[in-house]
């Protein structure tokens, strides 16, 4: 049976203070004008952690797929806690797990990081301008893929244990300070993300759903892609910031060392072969390719969401390309 706990904010901070002696703890803080994860190294940093706001700037994948890493060394095995993960990024983890833990080539670096990381998800109580998780069936409440669900409410922290790993952590660090409670006590807290869900559904009511978007993209003509890609500079920010974009470039170093560096189909020559053929030669073909991948090919092949509606690609685009406007137009 699912276990729920109630702990005062003060005691929760003590829990975290004990945990940082064993774990690398990453949690969202306000950094200048945005919110992002920070490594919490000292007791005084703990009070800066923010809870239950909308997503941090960096997607969760950054913790499992670093921008650059040597892939012929042994994995590090560092124990980590990532706190404050929004539900959209947890939904993206399903894609990453399916992809990187798929037999026969289980990625040793991804697996090592997944196994050694405790995930504490937090419900979203507020949303940002481009959040549209509910359009794709993702709820702003933490339902799965986290080890612990956490919400901060009126000076207390409300915890729900979602996995064996989460249970172990609770037993070791929290049980002494916390009081087990029943689901009825959680209801007022959970109601907050329930309210946000309704708001998001209303706000994004014109946006076609996930499967519908796939159908629309498949049958779309070239014109609309050329129109929306006109200002694209192929910088790849949309992919870098995407919780489910996974492509990379392998770079060879002397002595048979290899470095894996995140890459994107938005970069020119991504698919070009030595003889010169390049199916993604044009900018609009590359631009469309990313959405074909997310809404058609990945779901068809892996049966998981490859866009979780976080909206980061819209926020990150320096050309101010808004894929949701494109999909509304396609749906018109």
């Amino acid at each position, binding site marked *: 049976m699912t276990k729920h706990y109630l702990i005062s904010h003060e005691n929760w901070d003590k829990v975290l203070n004990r945990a940082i002696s064993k774990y690398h703890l990453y949690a969202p803080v306000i950094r200048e004008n945005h919110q992002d994860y920070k490594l919490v190294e000292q007791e005084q940093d703990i009070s800066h952690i923010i809870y239950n706001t909308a997503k941090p700037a960096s997607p969760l994948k950054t913790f499992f797929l670093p921008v650059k890493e040597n892939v012929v060394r042994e994995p590090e095995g560092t124990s980590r806690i990532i706190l404050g993960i929004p539900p959209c990024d947890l939904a993206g983890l399903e894609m990453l797990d399916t992809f990187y833990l798929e037999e026969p080539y289980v990625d040793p670096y991804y697996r090592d990081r997944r196994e050694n990381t405790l995930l504490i998800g937090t419900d979203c109580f507020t949303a940002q301008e481009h959040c549209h998780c509910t359009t794709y069936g993702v709820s702003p409440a933490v339902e799965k893929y986290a080890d612990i669900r956490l919400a901060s409410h009126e000076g207390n922290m409300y915890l729900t244990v979602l996995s064996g790993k989460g249970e172990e952590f609770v037993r070791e660090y929290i049980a002494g300070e916390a009081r087990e409670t029943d689901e009825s006590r959680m209801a007022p807290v959970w109601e907050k993300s329930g309210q946000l869900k309704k708001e998001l559904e209303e706000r994004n009511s014109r946006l076609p759903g996930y499967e519908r978007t796939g159908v629309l993209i498949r049958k779309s003509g070239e014109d609309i892609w050329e129109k929306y890609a006109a200002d694209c500079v192929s910088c790849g920010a949309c992919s870098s910031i995407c919780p489910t974009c*996974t492509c990379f470039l392998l770079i060879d170093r002397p002595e048979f060392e290899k470095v894996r560096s995140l*890459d994107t189909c938005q970069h020119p020559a*991504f*698919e070009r072969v*030595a003889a*010169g053929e390049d199916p993604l030669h044009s900018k609009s073909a590359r631009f469309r390719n990313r959405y074909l991948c997310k809404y058609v090919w990945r779901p068809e*092949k892996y049966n998981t969401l490859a866009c979780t509606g976080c909206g980061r690609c819209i926020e990150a685009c320096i050309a101010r390309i808004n894929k949701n406007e494109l999909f509304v137009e396609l749906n018109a």
Partner: protein
Amino acid sequence: MPEATARTRSKTRKPARNMYTPLPATVEKVIDESPTIKTIAMIPDEEFSFKTGEFIELTIPGIGEAPFTPSSSPLETKRMEVTVMKTGYVTDYIHRLKKGDRVGIRGPFGRGYPLEDMYGKEILILGGGCGFAPIRSLLYNLMAEKDQFRKVTLCYGSKTPEECIYKPFINELRSVEKFEVLRSVDKPDETWEESVGVVTVLLDEIRVDIPNAVAVVCGPPIMMKFGTFKLLEMGFPENKIFLSMEKNMSCGLGKCGHCTMGKYFVCKDGPVFTYDEIKDQPDIWS
């Protein structure tokens, strides 16, 4: 981005098998096949086995990697050959290799030719240019198991007689029972005594029992395209045409995304596909 940290609380663990680490090999010999094509024979530090049609990534340390289907026999595990056309940055370095140089081999990767499905059948092979490389490996395999097959017909095309590769191998093959070889060139010279024209002209010269045959096609994209269309026109079923696809395979593991062909990763789901598997995917001939 999350902040990096200098602190470590490491407990290192060996991965079961790291597919990014190449197996070092020493270049044994470099054979000039044509002005633009060379075959590199290598001795891997450990025995290395592959199935015909599977590919490897050949690593030039510090320079890069490129995918090749070995052109040597899959029955040989101590020595491997790859046949490389000089087309770009990495292949330029490969062409500069000499005896004793150290290279790396990763793999084998992907899905090769399904030999068992070809047992009892007649096999028609259509090859062009450097696309002969995977086919030679297949032919070695077919020669070793020739009792399993009714007949093997190789139709090979190249631009000029000078660019016809594997000349000694062709002579060897012509002396093997059940094997027939037809060649054509686009631009003949005065010594050329075989067919003239694009490789598909050879298909008009052969007799093939289509209901009991499979076809294998490997070559440049344009030749693959028109070769496949011709085979379809002749009446070959879509699922009996095996195509060895070329895309920008990099990791070999179906992860890096560079060889995406619609829903497939050519490196993992291919490189050998039947035509019916890929006909609805985008950009298969480019």
